[in-house]
């Protein structure tokens, strides 16, 4: 490959180009900078002693033998740090009377979930620390485990937090329209209970934290999604001034929400570094992480839908029990409420009511996991639409057509109060039906049913939307969230014409370095390889609100657009001066300022950058810098949507499910890099399918997590998953300058109901109406037996 000559840099449009990622080189060659690869000289290693009990009073803790072990620098119990450890933060008090129990990073008097830290050893190496843990004796006085959400709310239930006097964290209601009238006047009412099993996010990189005292302050490296939020929260919890803390998120190996947290270990390592004056390091083992990295989902959903005989939706009622776990962590209580606005999905209806009750249990707290509230909502509405279609004897796609917002009706304000800016549900659905071969598959299904084939075919439909680009600060404020939702970018034009882009959005596998380079290349007219993207270090990227909620491109990318516009604005003044023309007469294209309608020579942005750097001849009043910043706050959420169709074969003798085909047509607005977008969809599908078929965090009756290893918690492998058929339709978002809608969570949100819906659809002839997730062979088989027995019993009567 020959490089383009210096005089004609390649400035062809980058937006929409499937550019392989810049990040890959270090990841493919083992030169990655994971937190666990960082070890400053003199580092001491930390290991935590964790409670084997879900709920117990802590009696005497004897660490005397551990302190005498070789290589041990220090041992601390919860009591040792009680005065300085503070309480882990919850940034989302969803109601004024929400119960927010104190959450000490290390338990002092009582443990409330198995895995909670009660002591820690600091030693010369990880082995010495692990050995010393064995020598700590803790007296536990067992207390009752609280695991069942409904039992937890009953009168006289054992309390997770005795002081609170209730296991009810909050009750959050929402309603719009006359729900009672809608249900009273309806021809059909369908009511279902769905269970969102507890999931373990399981990013491939375990959590890891290194904290080093230096220059009168502290540098913390952490495998986190949120270096900026973490810095602020560490300062708030410990009282160490914010400007004395630097947080670095080096290469981070996946997060999916699990690293959107301020963890006990992060706070404690900061305190240990302060106490000992030495760098300290901790990396979780996988089984430790499964117990103590926050979990997701864990809800019981009671859903009722009311409709006319022709299928027109009248109303929707949702009553939710949401498992908070033992404490409220960073956004624990808010997660189910992110779903509150999404239950109506893409459908028009007259009335909607929603209530969420947050419930404490003696388990690891739940918090954001890919989709955070929205997968649960989408699951419920898409599953119950399938049930309603069955009730009405109508094709499930036709039922959706009769109720969805038409492409001519945007912007449309839903019954949940959100205004969807753009979308085209018809286009996405038509394309998906085509690619999937819907009609042919239905015919095959009919045939197999008629033939009594032992392997039945089922088809699942999911026409989802989601609120992304979290979020408009004003709306977060209305929801009592503790922070805003803006994002920051800055652009530095170097004298040589190369560009540094700094983003506050912190990547952990998404490909920001590539996509941001593409945006900057287009907006500044520079070659994409001339752009370097910096992120994930509060010293390099001073402002930001980090990465979650499919917000990075929509919000962070938009901030970059604005910063680039400011650079070009400043460059225009200088270019006009250099070309002896009026600014108004200049056009800027492909990185060149040219006097409109003339053959006069142009000034490239690189020439302007050099001239501004030299600053020998600046226009009157101009500053010698093109560098610019922008902070961008979106005017509204963005609303990606799509149609996902899944075909499964279910062996009615064994209960085994095989995904025969999966088609996803997503509308994520304008696409910067289709390669990255497709990858996000694939990965999202894998996690949604994981919930549908494989994954579940299970506790025994004592509250011990029995799926605490990868041998027990089934993450789908390459052999478990099918290939995917994906395509896109595009209706650009109008709420941000890129027109993008966000894609990080789409696949996960859409796929779970498509897969479970397909499993149930396969078993309809036997009377099956639901299979609880995950739809393991045993559960499918049991559902089939129960339905058959119910039917036989009915016939016998």
């Amino acid at each position, binding site marked *: *490959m020959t490089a383009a000559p210096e005089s004609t840099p390649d400035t062809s449009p980058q937006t929409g180009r499937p550019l*392989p990622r810049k990040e*890959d080189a270090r990841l493919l060659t083992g030169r990655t900078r*994971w937190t666990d690869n960082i070890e400053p000289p003199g580092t001491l290693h930390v290991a935590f002693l964790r409670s084997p009990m879900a709920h117990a009073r802590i009696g005497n803790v004897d660490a005397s033998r551990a302190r005498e072990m070789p290589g041990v620098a220090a041992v601390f119990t919860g009591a040792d740090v009680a005065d300085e450890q503070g309480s882990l933060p919850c940034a989302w008090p969803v109601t004024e009377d929400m119960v927010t129990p104190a959450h000490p990073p290390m338990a002092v008097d009582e443990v409330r979930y198995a895995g909670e830290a009660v002591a820690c050893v600091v030693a010369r190496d990880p082995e010495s620390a692990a050995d010393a843990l064995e020598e700590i004796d803790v007296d536990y006085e067992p207390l009752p485990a609280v695991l069942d959400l409904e039992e937890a709310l009953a009168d006289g239930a054992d309390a997770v937090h005795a002081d609170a006097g209730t296991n009810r964290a909050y009750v959050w209601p929402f309603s719009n329209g006359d729900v009672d009238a809608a249900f009273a006047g309806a021809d059909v009412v369908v009511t279902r209970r769905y269970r969102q099993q507890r999931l373990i996010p399981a990013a*491939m990189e375990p959590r890891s934290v290194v904290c080093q005292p230096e220059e009168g302050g502290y540098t913390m490296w952490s495998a986190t999604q949120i270096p900026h939020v973490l810095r602020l929260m560490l300062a708030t919890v410990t009282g160490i001034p914010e400007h004395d803390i630097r947080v670095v998120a080096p290469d981070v190996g996946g997060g999916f929400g699990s690293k959107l947290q301020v963890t006990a270990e992060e706070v404690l390592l900061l305190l240990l570094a302060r106490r000992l004056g030495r760098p300290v390091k901790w990396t979780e083992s996988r089984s430790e992480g499964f117990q103590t990295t926050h979990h997701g989902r864990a809800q019981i959903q009671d859903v009722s839908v009311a409709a006319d005989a022709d299928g027109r939706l009248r109303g929707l009622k949702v009553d939710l029990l949401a498992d908070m776990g033992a404490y409220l962590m960073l956004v624990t209580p808010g997660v189910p409420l992110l779903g509150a606005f999404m239950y109506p999905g893409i459908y028009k209806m007259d009335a909607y009511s929603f209530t969420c009750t947050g419930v404490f249990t003696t388990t690891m707290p739940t918090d954001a996991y890919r989709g955070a509230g929205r997968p649960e909502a989408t699951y419920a509405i898409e599953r119950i639409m399938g049930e309603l279609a069955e009730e009405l004897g109508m094709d499930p796609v036709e039922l959706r057509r009769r109720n969805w917002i038409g492409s001519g009706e945007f912007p449309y304000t839903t019954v949940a109060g959100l205004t969807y800016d753009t979308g085209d549900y018809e286009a996405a659905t038509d394309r998906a039906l085509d690619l999937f071969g819907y009609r042919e598959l239905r015919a095959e299904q009919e045939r197999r049913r008629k033939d009594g084939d032992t392997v039945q075919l089922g088809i699942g439909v999911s026409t989802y939307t989601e609120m992304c680009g979290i979020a408009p600060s004003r709306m977060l404020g209305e929801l009592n969230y503790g922070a805003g939702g803006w994002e920051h970018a800055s652009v530095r034009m170097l004298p040589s014409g190369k560009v540094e882009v700094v983003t506050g959005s912190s990547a952990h*596998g998404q490909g920001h370095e590539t996509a941001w380079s593409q945006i900057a290349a287009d907006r500044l007219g520079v070659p994409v390889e001339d752009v370097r993207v910096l992120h994930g270090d509060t010293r390099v990227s001073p402002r930001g609100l980090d990465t979650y909620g499919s917000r990075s491109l929509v919000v962070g990318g938009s901030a970059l657009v604005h910063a680039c516009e400011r650079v070009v604005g400043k460059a225009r003044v200088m270019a006009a001066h250099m070309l002896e023309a009026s600014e108004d007469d200049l056009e800027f294209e492909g990185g060149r300022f040219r006097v409109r309608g003339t053959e006069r020579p142009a000034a490239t942005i690189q020439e302007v950058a050099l001239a501004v750097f030299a600053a020998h001849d600046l226009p009157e009043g101009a500053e010698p810098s093109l560098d610019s910043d922008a902070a961008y706050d979106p005017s509204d959420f963005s609303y990606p949507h799509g149609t996902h169709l899944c075909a499964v074969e279910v062996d009615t003798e064994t209960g085994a499910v095989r995904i025969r085909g999966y088609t996803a047509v997503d509308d994520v607005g304008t696409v910067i890099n289709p390669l990255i977008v*497709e990858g996000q969809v694939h*990965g999202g599908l894998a996690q949604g399918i994981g919930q549908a078929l494989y994954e579940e965090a299970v506790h025994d009756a004592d509250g011990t997590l029995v799926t605490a290893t990868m041998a027990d918690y089934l993450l789908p492998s390459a052999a478990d998953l099918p290939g995917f058929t994906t395509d896109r339709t595009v209706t650009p978002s109008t709420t941000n300058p890129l027109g993008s809608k966000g894609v990080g969570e789409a696949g996960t949100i859409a796929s779970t109901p498509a897969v479970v819906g397909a499993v149930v659809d396969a078993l309809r002839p036997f009377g099956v109406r639901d299979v609880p997730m995950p739809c393991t062979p045993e559960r499918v088989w049991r559902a089939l037996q129960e339905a058959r027995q119910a039917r036989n019993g009915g016939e016998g009567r």
Partner: protein
Amino acid sequence: MPDIRVTVDGVRYDDQVEARRLLVHHLRRLGKVGTPVGCDTSNCGACTVLMDGASVKSCTVLAVQADGSRIDTVEGMASDGAWHPLQTAFHRRHALQCGYCTPGMLMAASDLLQDNPDPTEEEVREGLEGNLCRCTGYANIVAAVLDAAAEMRAAEMRTAGMHAEDLAAAEAPTERTPVGGGAA
């Protein structure tokens, strides 16, 4: 403590190690941190390396068991300044996102292709079953391995052809991507 000698990516290391130390931890203490640890039950495969040419999960091998062995890790995969065809294919096909599983995935895939240079999609899926990825949904990984297999077979054919015709090998064009390049 036992003395062991292992050759990692062509460099010999003589060390005393604790008998209980796992190979992956030994590698990482040697500074070979390109091989990460992903689990503690040998399920994830992130730590896969080649031991005397065969893939092993380096968390299931004690360092002392590797005494006298040759270990190849992802750090030594590129040679003569050029990426391995698997690395190139993973890049082109976007077969990695966070990249944490990638070192193990690459090593497992190279072992797979050694055993079966022309696998079907299903054989690739089965062959990589012991390596978990949480980001990609595997579709692009499978495609990349199939691409690399085709590329490696084609290169093999070219080499064989060259020998047959006794051509001057030095004239042959290279299809490999330079290290650190290939993006643009």
